[in-house]
């Protein structure tokens, strides 16, 4: 550490001269005034005001600290204000995302939106609704249903495969195969979602003819993304099960598979369930793989094994990018926002459930 020696103060005490505690607050207030003046000079705008005030604050506090407290304290104060500024700047887009979704999504969101589909809703309806001649119609029931079916299928495929593979890695796996699986699970976590979609599309194209699109193909694509997440999280949870439990089971003469199923899994089940819930939350919002595998439709499709199937993310995408009525896109955009809100609510709910599961069903520690 290169330090300037602490200048001995005139009074001979060990304490160092410091800026008063209220210095940052006062400086901030002054800088706000300076920022207002600066931004008024270039034509007032909020960003100009914030940037001006921020720069004024950093310059003032650094120089003041440099004069009173020394160089090291000045650097410290500068970094502190930089860190706070970074946090403040990052809050802007993040709050704006949440706010946009809520403000734009809430007007159309509701029971009617969730229980009607888009079948036979045309641009004409939207134009009339925008002119106030007719009510807004058209919802996302078919998309919610599609998302539910596709995600459920993907979960049905991914959870057994992922869970068994993680049991293999923790309880059985030794040597080359286990190393290969670990490595390639890592590789799989990095697969871009669109590539997973292309794989499923190519697979179903080869098996069932070019251009085959249905919910099941989407579920396969999502499984490619979901399996590695399930393996990772379950593996971590199984690894922290204390070895004493296994040994106690073996000592009682229980076969290994029963020890795994009846002792190891129940101990880790809360973590595993929460990991699976998070994995579902991750794939439920995947868009790219579904638009190349499941396609778009405006009708309700109950059968994931035949015909195109809508999903919520694809609904958002299609309503935003291809409004029903080209001349009055607003009703379609409203629908897109409402569907986005639905999606965000689902994802947040899944995250909360994961936290609750992890907390409520955690193994009781008696020690």
């Amino acid at each position: 550490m290169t330090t300037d020696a602490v200048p001995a103060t005139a009074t001979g005490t060990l304490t160092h001269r410091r800026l008063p505690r209220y210095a940052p607050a006062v400086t901030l207030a002054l800088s706000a005034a300076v920022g207002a003046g600066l931004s008024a000079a270039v034509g007032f705008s909020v960003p100009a005001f914030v940037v001006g005030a921020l720069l004024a604050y950093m310059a003032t506090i650094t120089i003041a600290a440099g004069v009173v407290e020394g160089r090291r304290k000045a650097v410290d104060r500068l970094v502190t204000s930089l860190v706070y500024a970074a946090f403040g700047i990052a809050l802007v887009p993040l709050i704006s995302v949440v706010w946009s979704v809520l403000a734009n999504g809430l007007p159309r969101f509701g029971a009617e939106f969730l229980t009607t589909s888009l079948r036979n809703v045309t641009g004409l309806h939207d134009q009339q609704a925008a002119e106030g001649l007719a009510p807004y119609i058209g919802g996302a029931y078919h998309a919610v249903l599609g998302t539910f079916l596709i995600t459920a299928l993907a979960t049905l495929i991914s959870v057994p495969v992922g869970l068994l593979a993680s049991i293999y890695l923790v309880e059985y796996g030794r040597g080359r195969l286990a190393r290969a699986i670990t490595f390639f699970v890592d590789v799989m976590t990095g697969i871009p979602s669109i590539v997973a979609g292309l794989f499923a599309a190519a697979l179903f194209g080869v098996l069932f003819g070019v251009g085959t699109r249905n919910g099941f193909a989407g579920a396969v694509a999502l499984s490619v993304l979901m399996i590695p997440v399930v393996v990772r999280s379950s593996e971590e949870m199984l690894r922290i099960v204390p070895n004493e439990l296994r040994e106690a089971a073996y000592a009682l003469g229980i076969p290994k598979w029963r020890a795994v199923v009846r002792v190891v899994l129940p101990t880790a089940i809360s973590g595993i369930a929460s990991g699976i819930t998070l994995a579902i939350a991750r794939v439920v919002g995947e868009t790219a793989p579904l638009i190349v595998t499941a396609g778009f439709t405006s009708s309700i499709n109950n059968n994931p094994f035949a015909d195109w199937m809508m999903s919520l993310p694809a609904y958002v995408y299609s309503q935003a990018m291809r409004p029903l009525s080209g001349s009055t896109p607003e009703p379609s955009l409203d629908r897109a926002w409402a569907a986005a809100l639905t999606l965000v609510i689902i994802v947040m709910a899944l995250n909360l459930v994961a936290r609750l599961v992890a907390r409520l069903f955690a193994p009781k520690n008696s020690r």
Partner: protein
Amino acid sequence: MTITTTDVQTPPNASSTPAKNRAGDRNFSWATRGAGMLILVVLAGVAAFLLLESLPALSADPADIEGGEGFFAYVWPLVFGTLAAALIALIVATPLALGIALFISHYAPRRLSQGLGYVVDLLAAIPSVVYGLWGIQWLAPNVRGAWQWLADHLGFVPLFTGPASATGRTLMTAGLVLAVMILPIITAIAREVFLQTPALHQEAALALGATRWEMIRMTVLPFGRPGLISGVMLGLGRALGETMAVAMVLSTGGFTWSMVTSGNSTIAAEIALDFPESAGLKTNTLIAAGLVLFVITLAVNMAARRVVTRRQAFSGAN
């Protein structure tokens, strides 16, 4: 994570009588092994199908590929767009993420920081299509003026050549949306490692008279560097493969150096926009482009793993 834990092994068979060979045990162990192998098969299948389906595009007469000059002439502008958007995202997101992570781990009051960490985790879970919708509806109109200013005042730099897009739907905007998306990811990982810095190191630094920043520079940053780098690399991998945000925000077009006009495209966006309506050789071309993307993200992710060997607990899963 490599398998190094030997402590979960079956106790060595010390007794002279071998354990009974039970059918349940055999079936169960084979079932788990089968699941593991299935994962390998699926991954091999991904690579095989992509290769198989892209061969026609790679071997086709160059004149038949879109653009008429062969596959590589078709794909390189897309690669450029992909890398450029991801680079913009990284340049914007990395310093901010570092700041937020430090704020949460070392600056914010402890009670506040826990809640903030939770909020960041939730933001990382917001689906990309929502970010895309936000980018096209809120961000693009709001940054239009900034790109106009860049084109007016810095137009001599090739990257900011005018005329600026009137809609704001440019590669710069797409890069910003990507930055917002990867911000929570990098922050979550960085915060996690920063919090793990041994308290003794930090207290020792403070006891020697270090200021808070000196303490962070001497203990937190060196300790957290591998985690931070891996977080950035994982964010890069996400930004490279991200589809919807770019497909929705960017108004795509041919190659241009300028980041503030409409134009350029990324591999993932090109696939998402064209694949649903494609047929014949065009499908093969798009799948081949997907293969290129796969290889790029694979390289980035493997490099990230190599960096993380010190902190193996961090997977790219979430």
